[in-house]
């Protein structure tokens, strides 16, 4: 096994770190789909707020990615 523990840590950091936000984004979009289904006329507002929420949930995954990048390249 040539690769040392740092590489393994980088892989685990982003791998496990993307689990939560993945589920979070899925829940967000699911809620948005339900809302659009109930009220198709409000689709633009629902979409805007959904994108906003997705960006926040995504930020957590980005933190994990930054940790992985720091581990690998610094």
């Amino acid at each position, binding site marked *: 096994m040539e690769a040392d523990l740092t590489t393994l840590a980088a892989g685990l950091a982003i791998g496990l770190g993307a689990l939560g936000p993945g589920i979070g984004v899925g829940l967000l979009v699911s809620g948005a789909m339900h809302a659009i289904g109930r009220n198709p006329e409000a689709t633009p507002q629902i979409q805007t707020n959904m994108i*906003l929420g997705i960006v926040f949930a*995504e930020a957590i995954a*980005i933190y994990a*990615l930054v940790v992985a990048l720091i581990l690998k*390249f*610094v």
Partner: protein
Amino acid sequence: MEVMQDVMDDVMGGGEEGCASGCITRTGCLGLIILVAVLGFMATKFPVALPEIALPAEPILTLPVVGFSITNTLLATWLTMLILIVGSVFVTRNLKVVPTGLQNLVEWGLEVLLNLVESVDARRGRQFFPLVATIFIFLLVSNWMGILPGFASVGLVHEADHGGHPLQEVSILGFNIGLLQPGEVGEHETGWTVFSFLRSAATDLNTPLALALISVVMTQVVGVQAQGLRYFSKFVNLRGPMGPIDMIVGLLETVSELAKIVSFSFRLFGNVFAGEVLLAVMAFIVPYVVSVPFLGLEIFVGFMQAFVFAFLTLIFMHMATLGHGPESEE
């Protein structure tokens, strides 16, 4: 079968008759195949090397006495500022009461922003607008400029600290240009890497950190402006009705403000830096072809991150002007 034949004729019609909108003509199909073949050929003749991915920005110039190094992200920030200032001067020449042309476009953009800001806080929207809109416009121009060709790819050749790539020297019109070749250097050789002249401003943690500090400090300033020194009772509340619980809540609020700095800066830094790394790696894996959808992703991400930074600043400023609970909201 007849119906299907008619539909297929419409979709796959020849170039002469034209076809339904959105279909691919024969000539169009041929053009696409030729394009992909040419790109594939170019990918073998001019392969792309994976650049050395470094978190800190690379210094281009080091001032001798002060020891301050001008990094490529600083150059990109200056370029963004130049574009914005020159653009503003251009747009505000010959201002007309009824706007036309470029002035009209810019006024439309600013009006959309102003409406958004005032939809969050109608009373004080105009007071928050300059900072929020500046953050948005600066980050938008900076992020979108970082996708242009030449960023993070053209620069000075340096010896790599570890790893690196072999170098091929080419002489064009008397200038010596080095092209990084993909592949590893040998065991005991140091390879080469590129210190690019320009690198998107937000890929250096300093820029997002600076903007985050400005944002959070201005939020406190706006809070004091709106509420006077009672604003600090959010953090240290000695006369609270709950006693020690209020002290703990105050501590949590302080930690939350510090966490905002971290979260602002890392959200922006992570998104833009990861985007840059993604573009570099994708261009290395399948040169020229696969870059296109990822450039589209970067355009979207650049816009969204600029928007989220500005919008969050606005929301925190609005929340800072509120007092305790709904009785202060008018």
